[in-house]
């Protein structure tokens, strides 16, 4: 129950920050100021936005399928929020440490698709329908490169447990039950003979432990942009042609739930990218000679210092990735449907398949 409240409040907090950042970053990239009126530097703007949405009238179109129309936002939000259940926030703090967390994450994200279809159909609006169709086609196709990129990371880590994967990427790996005698080698190659188990920091992150995972990270990041319908993959919500896609008929509280689910999805995919590739809650600083920077910035596991340091590193890395998402939105133009499918099936999927093969070979070098 505590984990539920904690995760929910943390998610809401990050979402509010991202909504504010979205406006400010967009404004700065276009040489504007963005919100300045509400609060210092306009920081109260996202809260006021939410307040405004909650006050609005809840309109259900008379021709809409009322039951589906009402259930759809709830289903989408539940699917996204359920994904947060397996995310470890710091060593010793994970809402549900199930052994197949990564697989569960992939399955729960595909539940989101049903909600989109429901919303599109329930609205009884051709724009909503088109938006839902495009969105589902896009998410279903991009799940494949994303899943394969995740699979290559899982093959390196030999685990589907997010917490175990997290422990493997830091200086305190041997504290995890089951990993007491494991060692990390530089670039994951035992033949080099450089033991980095106690060095920790960035040298044990997955993108460093098996350098080809950097490519996997890029593949996953592109695919995850498409999965949360972010620009440049935002044809489902293209303002200029579809008005707003599947949620065009929604207003008031229901729209707020869609909005929240969309931003929560962005946060979730970035969290997973950080956990699988960028060292999770581990510090980027290494133990260099007498300077035990890694231990210093990890804290004690199980105590408050460990939780705070872990959460700090995890959330700051996630915010950096979220900034990259915003950055990409104002850098690249929207992809056409055929370009979208070309990128997915003819570029990302073959690359990801190659990565899976490479991961198998690399794993043999690691033991």
């Amino acid at each position, binding site marked *: 129950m505590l984990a539920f409240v904690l995760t929910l409040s943390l998610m809401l907090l990050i979402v509010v920050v991202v909504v504010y950042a979205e406006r400010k970053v967009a404004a700065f990239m276009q040489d504007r100021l963005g919100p300045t009126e509400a609060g210092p530097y306009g920081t109260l703007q996202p809260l006021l936005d939410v307040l405004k949405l909650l006050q609005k009238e809840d309109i259900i179109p008379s021709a809409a399928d009322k039951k589906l129309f009402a259930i759809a936002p709830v289903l989408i939000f539940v699917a996204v929020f359920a994904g947060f259940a397996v995310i470890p926030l710091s060593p010793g703090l994970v809402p549900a440490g199930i052994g197949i967390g990564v697989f569960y994450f992939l399955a729960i994200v595909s539940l989101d698709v049903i909600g989109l279809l429901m919303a599109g*159909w329930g609205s009884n609006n051709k724009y909503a329908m088109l938006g839902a169709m495009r969105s589902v086609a896009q998410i279903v196709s991009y799940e494949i490169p994303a899943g394969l990129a995740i699979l290559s990371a899982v093959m390196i880590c030999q685990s589907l447990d997010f917490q175990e994967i997290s422990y493997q990427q830091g200086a305190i790996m041997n504290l995890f039950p089951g990993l007491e005698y494991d060692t990390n080698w530089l670039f994951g190659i035992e033949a080099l003979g450089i033991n980095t188990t106690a060095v920790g920091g960035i040298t044990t992150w997955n993108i460093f432990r098996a350098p080809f995972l950097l490519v996997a990270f890029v593949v996953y990041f592109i695919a995850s942009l498409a999965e949360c319908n972010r620009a440049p993959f935002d044809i489902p919500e293209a303002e200029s042609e579809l008005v707003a896609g599947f949620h065009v008929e929604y207003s008031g509280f229901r729209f707020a739930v869609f909005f929240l689910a969309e931003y929560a999805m962005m946060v979730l995919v970035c969290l997973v990218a950080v956990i699988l590739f960028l060292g999770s809650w581990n510090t980027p600083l290494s133990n260099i000679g007498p300077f035990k920077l890694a231990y210093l910035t990890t804290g004690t596991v199980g105590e408050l210092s460990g939780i705070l340091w872990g959460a700090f590193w995890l959330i700051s890395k996630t915010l950096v990735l979220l900034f990259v998402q915003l950055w990409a939105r104002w850098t690249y133009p929207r992809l056409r449907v055929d370009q979208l499918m070309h990128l997915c099936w003819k570029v990302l999927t073959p690359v990801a398949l190659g990565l899976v093969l490479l991961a198998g070979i690399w794993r043999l070098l690691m033991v």
Partner: protein
Amino acid sequence: MLFYIFAALAVLSGAYMVLTRNLLYAGFSLLVTLLSLAGIYVLLFADFVAVLQLMVYVGGVLVLILFGIMLSSRVHDKSVLSESVNKGWGIIISLLIFIGLAYTITRASFSSLAWIRTGAYADVLGYQKSTVQSIGIKLMTDFVLPFEVASLLLLIALMGAAYIATDKQNV
């Protein structure tokens, strides 16, 4: 207690799926059925099967079904309705399936299974955290032939789908 909730949900939504004439509602109630079945799998310590159920049936098959219904026929302001045809054959086939399932279930002697005799609260998984490891080992040793045959079958299906979908005007 949890089991009865999931079981009731599964039965009710399954019944609704069969009885409703609106194909789309049938699809969505299939979603509830599959989700509650996944819940029951988790209660049976089959976490991998539960998630696989979500992944394959909810994420793949159900989306395909819904997509098919939505793309194929939206008659203006009217949802797609199914009509009852082939009553005789339908009754015969469902009766046969029911008899087969009932026969199999009565033949299986559940009380002789080890993990039921040790009690529901015993640590079934042992030191392992999930069933993934044992499933993987079984697939690569005892059941490697069916596994490979299934992969070959899927590959053939994939090639067939790609062939059917190709633009034949150039040939």
